[in-house]
């Protein structure tokens, strides 16, 4: 007999595997984005505006953040709010196992999916386009984990403040575009004007972009950027716990 937590995790992992949409957007689309950009010849040439780096070099961290955003803001909120809306959490709360177990399993799965997707982006960037592996792996990993945590905390907050699955999807999309902007999907953060860069650096994905970029080039991601992400994670987690309704 396996433990309830293990069975919940196993079952939810299977269910996650049955969602081709989520699988594509979380696991594949970030790598696809990188490949499409990498196919543009000029993006593979060193640019003086970027201090001798190539556009594709900047887009590896962007694609990594894209994976986190897809997982935390697009894939997870509808699942969690759907579980609440359809009474799945309520049913579970009449069993010896608390429904929080289900939410935890979902968070863990989306975190894992985002991390796998991020690794795929880094690997494909290295193999296909010769983008150097992170110069400071430990710093990169810490930045990545904090970014995943703040992304999921943001998604959980979306769920907590949305009464229905429809609202959660809508709020998720409303947060999605600013998140994409601050992650540098349209203009890499490093290519933004200074003032804008400083403002964006105060958002979770802006800070993540800064930290990942620094670690990719071999430096230690600044405590400021890591601190911004940790702070957001803390505040958003607190908010989602405070406002989450079980039914």
């Amino acid at each position, binding site marked *: 007999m396996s433990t*309830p937590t293990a*069975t919940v995790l196993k079952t939810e992992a*299977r269910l996650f595997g049955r969602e081709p949409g989520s699988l594509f957007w979380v696991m594949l689309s970030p790598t696809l984005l990188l490949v499409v950009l990498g196919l543009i010849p000029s993006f593979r040439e060193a640019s003086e505006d970027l201090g001798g780096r190539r556009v594709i070099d900047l887009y590896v961290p962007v694609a990594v953040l894209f994976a986190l955003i897809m997982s935390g803001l697009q894939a997870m909120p509808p699942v969690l709010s759907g579980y609440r809306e*359809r009474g799945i959490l309520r*049913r579970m709360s009449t069993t010896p196992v608390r429904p929080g177990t289900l939410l935890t399993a979902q968070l863990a799965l989306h975190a894992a999916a985002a991390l796998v997707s991020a690794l795929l982006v880094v690997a494909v960037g290295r193999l296909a386009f010769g983008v150097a592996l992170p110069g400071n792996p430990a710093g990169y990993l810490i930045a990545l984990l904090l970014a995943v945590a703040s992304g999921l905390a943001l998604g959980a907050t979306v769920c907590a403040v949305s009464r229905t699955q429809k609202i959660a999807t809508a709020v998720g999309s409303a947060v999605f575009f600013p998140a994409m902007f601050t992650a540098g999907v349209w203009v890499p953060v490093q290519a933004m004007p200074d003032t804008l860069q400083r403002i964006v650096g105060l958002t979770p994905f802006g800070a993540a972009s800064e930290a990942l970029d620094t670690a990719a080039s071999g430096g230690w991601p600044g405590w400021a950027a890591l601190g911004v992400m940790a702070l957001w994670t803390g505040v958003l987690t607190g908010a989602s716990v405070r406002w989450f309704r079980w039914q």
Partner: protein
Amino acid sequence: MTTAAIEVRGLHKSYAGRKVVDGVSFEVGEGEVFGILGPNGAGKTTAVECVEGLRTPDEGLVRVCGYDPAVRRAEVTRVLGVQLQESELQAKLTVREALDLYASFHERPADPHALAERLGLLPHLKVRFAKLSGGQKQRLFIALALIGDPRVVVLDELTTGLDPRARREVWSLVEAVRDSGVTVLLVTHFMEEAQRLCDRIAVLDRGRIAALDTPEGLIRSSGGAKEISFAAGVPVDPAELRALPGAVSVTTADGRTVVGGTDETVTAFVSLLARHGVTAHQLRVTDATLDDAYLDLTGDDHR
């Protein structure tokens, strides 16, 4: 101290100042099928949710096998199986996965395979929840309610939305559950369901218990157990009908006269006809149903 499977005393619950449950008390004995019957909005589900531990009463005492559901969650979830009204499962979860998942929640679960067999779910083990028919979903919910091998199950609006055949199937299953010794608390607004399945019924109306008795008792106390009806115009004085032994009501409507009473009333009615040498046209003697009792007990504004 108590041998009751469920004990509810002086239960009160309000939402935003509106009293939904207003002083409800009842006891369900071990092995009994106890029905809670009432119109929509009578407070049935709220009362039962207090028993399930999903809501905390404002006032009053609730015990399940001696445990307070609001406080002793671990003990209550071990002895109580629950089928919730309007609650679903993950759309892509298969029947087998659902059974295994819920079995894993319990220390000593029932055998999922045996349970699936008992509830006729074996042919559907690989079917995803969203693809199940209404009847199959309800059978799965009964299975999930039973999977912890509970002493008490709560079944809330079990057959709402099912076609008559599926409804009858589910009723036989509930009877089988009762026969296995499990106490059943059944919430319904179907008279026929309550009359067929329940040992005792509490009729809930606007948050209060309007009556609590066996189905037969409820029928007797309102309109009588037998109904004699015949085409109006039989030359018998209504006063004589009213004076029949056991007669509780005499009404004439839509061209028919209806006398509510007992078997004794029927016998006396026949001899009355013989004495007067008259014939009653279109004479029918039927068992009164719970419908009549129910309509008497619940308020006019629900009709």
